[in-house]
């Protein structure tokens, strides 16, 4: 019976909690039991936070008893290892931050705590969110709950796997080039990246500041929508935080797709390396949406072939600057007994950073260095303009853009670790949304060879409600919903 509590959506759990048929403490017990049984196989979590869940569950049960209703009261959540939680070790999947206990809590997390959520633990991710498989974690790789020999995607692979395995009802991730949407697709759950500026980045360990956004993983579009609405809205502690009201993400999102125009970019539809099974699942999803009264229209994003190249200048350039702070002086790993300060920097960073971080810092430093700045960084920023204009043009012909989230289903562990470029290509359909600042959602749309496929819906900036509307209409009409994987 308690195991059933780990299969609920937030909406269902909320109802049971309010009726008093289960308590927040029961929710925790059910999830902890399932984690103890499955996580040794899935390895979604890096660490657990009993000191938080005990306190938060007791508080939730007290509030429920007093008749208070909050949207996430008693709901168990997991947090990616890049979002600071006061007093809880937060390491960005890296050795260089081992032992770091933040003195403050990220705004996005705090808002979920304020809504009554219970924190179960910290989820695994690629080091500094750099990667598409969670194999770049400096601790261990996370496994895909649907096939333990395959990756969960990344970089928020631990969060996606936790939700897919019933080890959390909601998880937070971050998306810089696809790090929420791609693992959501590969694990068969819903994942949403909001418009740049919608959710505060305060307390997020920065990777690429002009691209990073925080967003939710859930097992239904409704759950993702409610969690996103709670996290959204102005925060004076993030200079790029929008003043638009957070609740607008829910505007009219249940209205269905009748009369909507859905753009199918030919460059995405026929992207190089797309698997036939993925394409078939997308074709079937488009048919469902047409049956619901949407019109699909042919659109073009002509600079798609240049997106990856622009992204792999801009993101590493920003990361090389953001990661300069890891010098062994104020926190984390340190070679404090080095003979001089330069040796301290070099040794700390040699021991603390893994291979992918080194590659990106080198690439970014090169692209920003004197003599190469115009040819690389400035050029990439100009191409970013062209990519944004592609989307602006496409959105003149359609209300939202639909495609596969990932060209492939989950791949075996180790399949792409020796060839960085092949790993980077995992994000070819998602990183355009980051470069253009768009909101995007991935929803489960069936399987290929028994593995989940994700449908991506991109909307114009501030159009989260449009993306959610298409995703929800698809979910409702197709009856394809996120399932809980039983793993073993």
């Amino acid at each position, binding site marked *: 019976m308690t195991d059933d509590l780990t299969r609920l959506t937030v909406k269902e759990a909320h109802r049971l909690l309010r009726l008093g048929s289960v308590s927040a403490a029961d929710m925790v017990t059910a999830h902890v039991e399932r984690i103890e049984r499955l996580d040794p196989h899935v390895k979604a979590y890096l660490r657990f936070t009993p000191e938080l869940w005990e306190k938060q569950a007791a508080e939730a049960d007290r509030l429920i008893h007093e008749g208070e209703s909050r949207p996430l009261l008693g709901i168990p959540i997991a947090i990616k290892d890049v979002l600071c939680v006061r007093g809880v070790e937060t390491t960005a999947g890296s050795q260089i931050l081992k*032992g*770091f206990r933040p*003195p*403050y809590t990220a705004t996005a997390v705090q808002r979920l705590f304020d809504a009554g959520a219970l924190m179960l633990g910290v989820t695994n991710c690629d080091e500094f969110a750099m990667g598409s498989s969670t194999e770049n974690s400096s601790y261990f790789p996370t496994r895909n709950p649907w096939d333990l020999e395959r990756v969960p995607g990344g970089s928020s692979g631990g969060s996606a796997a936790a939700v897919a395995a019933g080890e959390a009802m909601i998880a937070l991730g971050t998306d810089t080039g696809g790090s929420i949407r791609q693992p959501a697709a590969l694990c068969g759950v819903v994942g949403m990246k909001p*418009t*740049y*500026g919608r959710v505060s980045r305060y307390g997020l360990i920065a990777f690429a500041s*002009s691209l990073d956004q925080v967003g939710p993983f859930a097992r239904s579009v409704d759950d993702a929508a409610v969690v996103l609405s709670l996290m959204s809205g102005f925060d*004076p502690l993030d*200079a*790029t935080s*929008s003043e638009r009201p957070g609740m607008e993400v829910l505007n009219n999102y249940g209205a269905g797709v009748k009369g909507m125009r859905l753009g199918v970019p030919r460059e995405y539809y026929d992207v190089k390396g797309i698997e036939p099974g993925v394409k078939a699942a997308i074709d079937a999803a488009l048919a469902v949406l047409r049956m619901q009264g949407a019109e699909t229209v042919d659109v073009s994003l002509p*600079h798609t072939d*240049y997106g*990856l*190249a622009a992204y*792999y*200048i801009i993101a590493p350039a920003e990361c*090389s600057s953001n990661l*300069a702070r890891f*010098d*062994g*002086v*104020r*926190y984390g*790993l*340190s070679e*404090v*007994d*080095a*003979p*001089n*300060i*330069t*040796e*301290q*920097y*070099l*040794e700390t*960073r*040699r021991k603390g950073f893994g291979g992918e971080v*080194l*590659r990106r*810092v*080198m*690439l970014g*430093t090169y692209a920003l260095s004197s003599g190469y700045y115009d*040819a690389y960084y400035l*050029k*990439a*920023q*100009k*191409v*970013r*303009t*062209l990519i*944004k204009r592609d989307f602006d043009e496409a959105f003149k012909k359609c209300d939202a853009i639909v495609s596969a989230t990932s060209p492939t289903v989950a791949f075996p562990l180790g399949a792409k670790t020796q060839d*960085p*470029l092949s790993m980077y290509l995992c994000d070819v359909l998602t990183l355009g949304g980051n470069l*253009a600042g768009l909101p995007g959602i991935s929803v489960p749309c069936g399987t290929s060879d028994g593995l989940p496929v994700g449908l991506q819906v991109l909307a114009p900036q501030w159009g989260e409600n449009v993306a959610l509307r298409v995703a929800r209409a698809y979910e409702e009409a197709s009856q394809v919903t996120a399932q809980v994987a039983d793993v073993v």
Partner: protein
Amino acid sequence: MLARLGIEPGDEAYYAEQLSGILEHIDRLQQLDTEHIPPTAQVVEVASRLREDEPRPSLTQEEALANAPAAVNGFFRVPSIQEET
């Protein structure tokens, strides 16, 4: 050296080869004529915001030093920054 990265001796060639492959892919950007295209640094229009310069609560010295690998007398301790003469 500019990036202050220490690399394991012997790994230089491994990284050089991988980075060459990535740069080769990136070189396709040069095919595009961007002479009259403005760069995008910030993708969403947000007006620059300044707050009043007023004192407000922040971390205490103790909190700021709590994660320090080495602290002495309320300072972060680092190795010598100048050569001994």
